[in-house]
């Protein structure tokens, strides 16, 4: 059985004439350890799809089964527990706690796990060891995003959901972040779904999903993923 199974998921916003159907019966699946990239233009439903998998929104129809649990059937409290146990989130704008240091920001999620990753090792592997005592405002955007990834990873989640993780970063810093995610996927076996509108990133994925107007228009397996550091755009 696949690690993630999405069957006929629908989602719409608004009512009456203003009603917009964002996802129109989307079906797909992912195996554990996959590195999936979800592509599509703005408004295609990428973030909504990610939010449904993350339990941040509820589907109007269909089901989302993660590791055997249908999260569309869970109560709010159970969805919370699911996020606590299984998920890591990375956002475009980092959302770090401004008055916690880099180390403390990562500790915030280490606290949620019974078996968190060793913090010092993680800081070193993220290249944040020298910045660990600094506050978010004292480091660069790339370092802030690495910190956000560290925060998501530290609880050793089975699924890492990244919403435009390089959207606010320059080319070089984006490559560093993607390289980091590639290592995480490889070293920890974490299943990763990255939402992006940057087609180039698809070349490093093992799976490429493309959405257009709420429909899955491409669902391809990439047999020869490219190393992140070699990507160009």
């Amino acid at each position: 059985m696949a690690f993630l199974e999405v069957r006929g998921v629908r989602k719409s916003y608004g009512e009456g004439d203003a009603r917009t159907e964002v996802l129109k019966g989307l079906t797909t699946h992912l195996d554990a350890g996959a590195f999936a990239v979800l592509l599509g233009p703005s408004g295609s439903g990428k973030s909504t799809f990610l939010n449904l998998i993350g339990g941040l929104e509820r589907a109007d129809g269909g089901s989302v089964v993660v590791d055997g649990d249908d999260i569309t059937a869970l109560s709010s409290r159970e969805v919370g527990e699911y996020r606590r146990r299984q998920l890591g989130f990375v956002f475009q704008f980092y959302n770090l706690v401004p008055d916690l240091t880099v180390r403390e920001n990562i500790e915030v999620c280490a606290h949620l796990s019974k078996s968190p990753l060793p913090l010092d090792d993680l800081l070193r592997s993220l290249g944040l060891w020298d910045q660990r005592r600094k506050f978010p405002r004292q480091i660069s955007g790339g370092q802030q995003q690495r910190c956000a990834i560290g925060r998501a990873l530290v609880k050793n989640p089975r699924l890492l959901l990244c919403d435009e993780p390089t959207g606010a970063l320059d080319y070089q810093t984006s490559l560093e972040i993607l390289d980091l995610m590639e290592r995480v996927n490889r070293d920890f076996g974490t299943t990763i779904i990255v939402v992006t509108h940057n087609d180039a990133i698809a070349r490093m994925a093992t799976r490429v999903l493309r959405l257009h107007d709420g429909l899955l228009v491409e669902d391809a397996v990439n047999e020869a993923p490219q190393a992140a550091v070699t990507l160009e755009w």
Partner: protein
Amino acid sequence: MASPLIHRLPRELVHNLGRYAGIFLLIAVSIGFVSGFLVAASSIERMIGAMPATYHVEDGQFTTAFEASSEALAAVEGLGVDVEENFSHDEELRWTPPEGAGPHAVDAGTVRVFKNRSTFNQAVYAEGAAPARVDEIALDRVFCAHAGLSVGDTVEVAGTAFTLSGICTLADYSALFESNGDFVFNALTFSIAQVTPEAFEALSGAPTYTYAYFDDREMTDAEAADLLEDIAQTLADHDTAVLSLTTAEANNAISYAGDDVQGDQLMWKVMLFLLMAIMAFVFVVLTGANIEAESAIIGTLLASGYRKRELVLHYLALPALVGVAAAVAGNAAGYGWLSAPMRDLYYNSYSLPPYEPVFNPEVFLLTTVAPVVLLVGITLVGLLRKLRCTPLEFLRHETTRRSRRRGVALPERWPFAVRFRLRVFLCSFSNYVTLFLGLAFASLLLVFGLCLMPVIEHYAENLQSDLVAEHQYVLKAPVEIDVDGEARAAQAAAETLATTDPAELEAMDPTVLAELMADAARVDGDAEVVANSELNSAAVIDQAEKFAATTLETPRALGDANEEVTVYGIAEGSRYWKKLDVSGDRMVAGRGLVEKCGIALGEPRIFEDILDDVDYELVVDGVYGSASNMSLYMSLATFNRLFGHDAAYFNGYVSDEALALDDLYVVSDLTPGSMEKIVDQMRNSMGSMTSLLTILAAIVYVVLIYLLTKTVIDRNARSISYLKVFGYRPGEVNRLYLRSITTTVVVSVIACLPVVVAFIALLVKVVFMEYAGNFEVVIPPVQLALTAVVGIVCYGAVALVHMARIRRVPLALALKVQE
């Protein structure tokens, strides 16, 4: 493992020091002042309540014209009471004012001298000791404080020098009323004193024969009044002329201080209620602002798997810690150094035993537990309400209805600046509503503090305006002034016989005594009206007018207490009560009485005689006098018929000329001068209290405006930074943002005043409901202007400081951290 979020707490505290300092100050100052006062007042109240048992204070007293016989006293004791001699001499007291007291310093007065007491109405010594030698004296503590006397000083009593051996308080003179009929106490020229029995005997002349009685039985007011009547009757049965008699409850020297302390607490409790409402409002605003500011972080933490409970605890921790710290600090200040000035409010007026602060659970609950529970509770409710949003809503900053609402379309033909400003205004509309409400609350507090004294002064002015004559005499019995010389002489003879010691009468020249007895025999003992023994001119007699007065009670419109009503029977077409029509059986009520007790004209109303336990159903037909007039008027004929008196009955005179009246029958003489004394006493006893309330209100007002202004400016700080990034000049930024905030503040400060005034009117009604009399709200325009100016200046200062701070933040940094 403790949540790593705990590291945020000290940093958040430092980062938002202004906000938390404001909350701390708000709670600590409120608790400090209110608990300081309530602790002092409740300790004093408890002490006064314990005084009868601790110092064996009398349950009542009677004064006889000459020493009562042992048979008469035994008969009184037969009524179930113990009787003790409590004789005194009223003597002239002279002293030397302290150096630097000025040429107008008072140096003479009256002293009421008692023998050293040890078993009842005991003395408590603040300094020194009870007189042990014949030339030693102890005087009252408050009097000594005003007169500048210390132990060791010399004073003269009836021309004899005494050394001040002690400064004391007598348990039956906590308020220095020279006479129970006085309207105010007098600690400036009147004192009580204790001397040795030898020194007491050495004072010349007959003492005042006062007897204190003690009764262990629990009694209602009506039973105590019945006992008093029985005592009077028993003494009369034993041919003992009684000059005065009163229960301890009705004795101002004993009961006035306790009543005063009790009444003042209500004012402070209302203040506390206002403060609590303001605190609740501030907490709601700050919690909302905090959650909105941290929306993305909360969303991220929730998305990462944090439970709502964990976040609630986190966001609750700091307000709770600050609240508890402020409560501790406020209480420390209240119990420590603020209870002393609060205590002095009373100790400067009343002679009370040494002060001992007593822990009062109710005060602790009101001033400490309640504000902290309020802070934690409101923050908790705010958090729980806000945390109903989904993680996604937090991430999208959609935590308020405003943020979820679609923007209003504005016509594009409007200039950009207008649309922008309007957009800013609409986006910040809820902030401005908050600001308006907050300013209204703050103004309410300040105006309340500022208007207390004017309200009292206006009440005093009303009292004076209700005085219809230069003299209003209240008599113990009808005393006819329009009598011939023979009747006058007969009455004088009868009084001399009744009030002279039998031993002295025996020693009198038999011829003189026979003449006295012959004159006295002409007095009709059964006549209801007594002839005045003093002479008045025909002109004076002509302009004087008789009236009758008694006291009834009727329920107040609010609460379950009764209001005391003076019922007057006056002459129809009275020359003094002008334009007051009491013809026929018409009854007219004072405007204050109608307002305070909610009397409906033309409808029956119950008036109660508490002492005789009789109810009267009366119909009020009209309204008269000022808003402080608490009287009920009817014609003298109606009065006498209603209360079962003879048609000729009266017990008072109104007169623009001073009347020569037999002192024996005069209860009181109310003059504009005595009214001025009441007014001065009210100003004196409430002045310092209202000053303290005003200081507290002003502090809270400034803190509140600081917190609200800062919150609103904080909310716009990021947008202001953005505009600067786009190249807007500071002046342009100010025009777009700060001007709308400034306009809102100015408009709010002014626009909320009518609402505030209306609410204060209601509040004052509630506050003063417990006090006798009706207080009308008067808020001088200058006080309102002052409130508005203080608010605007305070806002200006906060805005300047805060804008300077925002300007100092490097733009790159302002944009870098997105949270």
